[in-house]
């Protein structure tokens, strides 16, 4: 047998007394609960807004990634439309030069990755000797190294 303790009884009476408040919903909760609920609601809304902006930023700057993603979709009228939309969007981003940012960053990092100890230590003499173009060609060739090392997503074992 579970007897009701005086403390619980007090709570029941208090709630019964505040029956009108209970019907209104929020008043049935303690102040701490309301504070928690309010904080959670605000935090969730804040993160949701932040995520929406994040998606917009990524759509703008990483339209190539979007095309890559939708190209993995199966064949169908809806999917085809999505692919066309993504490619059109990417085309627009390319036309406005926004998509070039990704390629520029990748090219720069690719050069850094391929730089050897001699490149890193003897930069000035090379420039004075006027071999900038040759060095540029070599780096261009080396960029393929970045792709060489890349691995595709695989399923877990």
């Amino acid at each position, binding site marked *: 047998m579970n007897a009701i303790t005086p403390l619980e009884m007090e709570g029941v009476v208090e709630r019964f007394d505040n029956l009108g408040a209970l019907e209104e919903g929020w008043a049935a909760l303690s102040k701490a609960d309301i504070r928690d609920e309010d904080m959670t609601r605000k*935090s969730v809304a804040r993160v949701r807004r*932040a995520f929406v902006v994040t998606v*917009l930023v990524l759509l703008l700057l990483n339209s190539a990634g979007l095309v890559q*993603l939708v190209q993995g979709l199966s064949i169908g009228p809806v999917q085809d439309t999505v692919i066309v939309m993504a490619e059109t969007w990417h085309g627009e981003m390319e036309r406005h030069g926004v998509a070039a940012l990704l390629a520029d960053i990748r090219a720069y990092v690719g050069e850094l990755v391929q730089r050897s100890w001699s490149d890193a230590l003897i930069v000035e003499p090379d420039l004075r000797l006027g071999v900038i173009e040759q060095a540029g060609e070599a780096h261009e060739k080396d960029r393929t190294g970045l792709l060489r090392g890349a691995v595709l997503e*695989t399923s877990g*074992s």
Partner: protein
Amino acid sequence: MLFPTLEFGIFFLIVFAISWELRRTADLRKLFLLAASYTFYGWWDWRFVGLLALSSLANYLFGRALGGLERDGLRRFIVALAVIANLSVLGFFKYYGFFLESLDDILVVLGLERDLPFLEVILPVGVSFFTFQGISYVVDVYRRDVAAQRSVVDVCLYISFFPQLVAGPIVRAAHFLPQLEEKPSLTPAMVGLGITLILSGLIKKMVIANYLATELVDPVFFDPSVLGAVDLLVGVYGYAIQIYCDFSGYSDIAIGIAALLGYRFDANFNQPYRSASLQEFWRRWHISLSSWLRDYLYIPLGGSRKGEFGTYRNLFLTMFLGGLWHGAAWTFVFWGTFHGAMLGVERYVRRRFSALAPPVDGEPQPASRLSDAASWVVGVVLTFHLVCFAWIFFRAESFGLAFDYLVGFGDWSTPVQHATPFLALLIAGALAFHFTPPSLGRWIGSGVKWLPSPALGPAFGAAVFFIWAIAPEGVAPFIYFQF
């Protein structure tokens, strides 16, 4: 579905939005999170969703049985049965082939060759993690650390919650189940921590670990016999950083995602390479596994209460089994036993030192002031190199390759082929991070938590884009998925 992919990004946005919409109906929210977790798991292979559900259900029933019993003998029998059932699942999927191959080798040596029942067993992703969580639940109920759950959804969600499902951290039942009872809440601190950890995890995994893996570690470990000592040395340092960034990066993202969904996980790594002893290393590396092994294996074996010899034996056995948990190969067993043996040696040496110069009136003597800055530096360097030595066996695909690797350290004349300045910088930067203030992440998180969404959104978006842009193309699977 891997964390650092657009697919997962879309999945998480949907889960985040719907789960918080359901926050006022706790049961429905848990059911939704369970369905999301099974979808996440099924993305790899739907066939194993049944195994996950069956394992969770069995552990729920074992828990219910334990909760309804008072007799100690019967409770012990049930918990033993539950542990055996869990380990049998793990044993079949993970070790069946390994044990049979080892048995076959022994029979060949003895001249008793037989046709053994070899099977092509596919290892379900994350099986080691969800099995350990199942054991954790049943043993916690047995020890009365947690009440037997009435809700099957709670137990299933605890075992399969998607942020930690496939590669940990191993969450304790006594830590997670009470959170399912509470009303879900999201504080600004959790938002700050979640966003910071997700970004830190993405940098660690997508940039540092992936570059080191593809440009250095994979080629160096492919054929170490053709490389010189510099490449091999930088290669093993690179692997030490790669495995740290790979695994702690995954843990960071998992903890961050859980935080954004309103759940708290404990930290899984704490700057492990700043450890001045192996004992300290194991308090900082894969904390959820080492504390699991301590609480469910080392202490039940007797811990340090069984005398000097018993302590060494328990240390050794715990690390041996810890090694075997990582993978079904003798190289992993060697890795575990090496750590076990070295922990024993370290303990012995420390005790001898203490005996030589015991404290006088509570004050350490000059000779015993070995814990000062100089000895700390020596300890850090020594520990790091012992750990690196063991990593060679952990990473090498066979003892032959590991042996080639060690032999190569004698060759200082072969020119450097793989150790480029960029990779050296990555390694140095990641090592330097280990010596930054431990609460650096929390400081950054507390800065992020007050950012208004018009600032948080572009900052998070730009950071994700920048990480995406500088990372090598493609996504390598996480190392710990295979365990």
